């Protein structure tokens, strides 16, 4: 039984949320068992996590498949559309706050904790007694030189190319949107494909940058606070680019299948918003992690 209440589509009971909960639990529980920990070592392997990921993938296909089916059969009126829009916007806001935590950590160490370790403010004795001779410079792997000698990542080169790539992809996804609104299916598919390709190129270059940093620059996740902030910020961003590219790939496949109308294409817009969001985060990264 699915109920239409004053035109607002109320879905019938669904098994997908429970399956999602089970998948989420298995994934995280399995991951925790396989983590090295501080001293105890792992107590398990990654198989439970893989099982959880399979369950999650099954849930995502099933749940989104059902929603796409309902959407294409015209069950969603404008009010439902607004609910989805609000849901996506607030979800993106939550993602912004997630990144804000890591940017906040970066600003805190650069502006406060590293200067304090070097004796600024009333911390002269901290420096004198604990970390004698440590100076306030950025990048740093701290007074303990955690991780040993390393090279820092310059902003020129791959990061600059990646900035251009991501900004260009923001343009191409907008061109795709215009094409969709003008009912130009082939242009829509072309520009969407270009966006996904640029996203893939971005991730590939990022992967190359990481491998180069690890092998040739001794810049690792464990390279003090610089390595920590560098990899966690760019890494979570890379993960979000990957998620955004997967979303856009689904939109591409749906465009090829003939989904979406000029008036009714919330999923496409949601993916595009998400793409612009990772774009903006990247600009922050480029400026504060690579450049300044």
């Amino acid at each position, binding site marked *: 039984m699915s109920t239409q209440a004053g035109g607002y589509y109320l879905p019938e009971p669904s098994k997908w949320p429970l399956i999602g909960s089970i998948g989420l639990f298995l994934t995280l529980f399995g991951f925790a068992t396989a983590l090295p*920990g501080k001293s105890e070592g792992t107590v398990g392997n990654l198989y439970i996590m893989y099982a959880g990921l399979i369950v999650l993938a099954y849930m995502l296909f099933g749940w989104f498949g059902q929603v796409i089916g309902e959407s294409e059969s015209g069950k969603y009126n404008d009010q439902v559309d607004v609910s989805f829009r609000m849901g996506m916007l607030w979800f993106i806001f939550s993602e912004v706050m997630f990144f804000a935590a890591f940017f906040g950590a970066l600003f805190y160490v650069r502006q406060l904790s590293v200067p304090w370790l070097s004796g600024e403010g009333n911390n002269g004795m901290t420096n004198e007694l604990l970390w004698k001779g440590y100076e306030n410079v950025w990048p740093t792997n701290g007074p303990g030189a955690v991780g040993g000698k390393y090279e820092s990542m310059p902003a020129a080169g791959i990061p600059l190319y990646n900035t251009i790539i991501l900004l260009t992809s923001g343009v191409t996804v907008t061109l795709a949107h215009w094409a969709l609104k003008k009912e130009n299916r082939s242009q829509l598919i072309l520009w969407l494909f270009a966006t996904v390709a640029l996203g893939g190129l971005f991730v590939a270059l990022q992967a190359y940058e990481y491998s180069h940093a690890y092998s040739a620059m001794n810049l690792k996740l464990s390279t003090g606070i610089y390595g920590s902030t560098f990899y966690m910020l760019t890494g979570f961003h890379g993960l979000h680019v990957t998620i955004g590219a997967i979303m856009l790939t689904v939109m591409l496949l749906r465009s090829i299948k003939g989904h979406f109308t000029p008036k009714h294409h919330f999923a496409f817009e949601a993916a595009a918003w998400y793409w612009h969001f990772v774009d903006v985060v990247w600009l922050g990264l480029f400026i504060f992690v690579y450049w300044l």
Partner: protein
Amino acid sequence: MSDHKPTGIKRWLFTTNHKDIGTLYLWFAFTMFLVGGAMAMIIRAELMQPGMQVVDPLFFNSMTTMHGLIMVFGAVMPAMVGFANWMVPMMIGAPDMALPRMNNWSFWILPFAGTMLVSTLFMEGGGPAFGWTFYAPLSTTFAPKSTDFFIFAVHMLGFSSIMGAINIIATILNMRAPGMTLMKMPLFVWTWLITAFLLIAVMPVLAGAVTMMLTDRNFGTSFFSAAGGGDPVLFQHVFWFFGHPEVYIMILPAFGIVSQIIPTFARKQLFGYASMVYATAAIAFLSFIVWAHHMFTVGMPVAAELYFTYATVMIAVPTAVKVFNWTATMWKGAMTFETPMLWAVAFVFLFTIGGFTGLMLGVAPADFQYHDTYFVVAHFHYVLVTGAVFAIIAGVYYWLPKWTGNMYDEKLGKLHFWLSTISVNVLFFPQHFLGLAGMPRRIPDYAIQFAEFNFMSSLGGFAFGLSQLLFLFIVIKCIKGGEKATDKVWDNPEGLEWTVPSPAPYHTFETAPQIK
């Protein structure tokens, strides 16, 4: 449309109905309330006398840690979301929540997250024992393996809260009946709208904090390690940027519940509706810029101590507006004291005590004396137990007839109230004195001069704990039967929820009501 609903266990597992999900939330919260309460009983048993008698110190620390985590994330927050699920659609004339399937997911993550959290107690090395605030490096360098499971439990609780909050915002902004303008919404809806915003803003920050913990523990990052250029104090900043709004997440919906109850039993309109809305928004705004008052003794620059003191005491202004408005609502009202009203009046009185001690703690030089003593424990239990929990209980008595169609047992309800209110003060009031005399929090043993007040406090604790079993009995008795409730239940209460039958049908407001 029919009142058809699936039966058996599948109804609860797969439900997309806001009332079913609200019920699930409330029962989950009550279960966790008893689990966390049992831990509190262990704590009070150990502290009843000086010396070590019941548990070993590590387990004691696990108990204080898990008691806090379970009560915050397992009991109070889910109970408030349960109220939101049940009441918000009915109060704004909506057929259901905006995103019913996601609503189910928000709930069903919770039992899994709760299981993961509680399972840490049975792991090698014991459960988390670093306090509910899980400060680094206690939670990074010196914590057992179970901490990684704790971290993921927090992640899951965060997913649940964020999805729940998104759903509530979308419902309130998009599903209101025609004519239900924002400034006509019941205050409970307003407080939840603002709470949901706070949740979406700060739960991801908590996720960031525990993620940094995870990588510091497992992947060699240096966020909270000075040797690598990080700072353990950074953890406290990130945590309390989440933690301070979090305490308003727990209390704002309580304000909302009380603001529904007092006008009904004072038989007057809520005094200063608009100022209540603005005060709620002001408290929410201030909650983002006061976090470091939890860290006055950590060694911040003097300028920061000054700023956070001034910003913190500003919160007293909008909070005082609220307390004034509740009092003014009762002023010259035709008051009666049914059980919900008793709890609500006690809330106003006892929450205000917690608010005053909060002011004392908010002043940096005074806080140097109180920090990490039982005074802090007394303070936040006054705002959370006699504040948030009392409001939850008040709300349950207020809406239980609407939910079940039966009146609860008024005599037993009043007995529950008096037992709880007396015992909770015996439990927590002496803790003020203990703290001022210098007894530190989070310790299993103490100096001999603290013995009398601890003994009193423990007796109050056991009495308060047992009283809540009476609450369970009253609720079950009401579900099973009792005097039939009328649609209005009370003497002319305001709000759309009283225009539908008691018990509220499975689906309400399939056709939106017109609000004049």
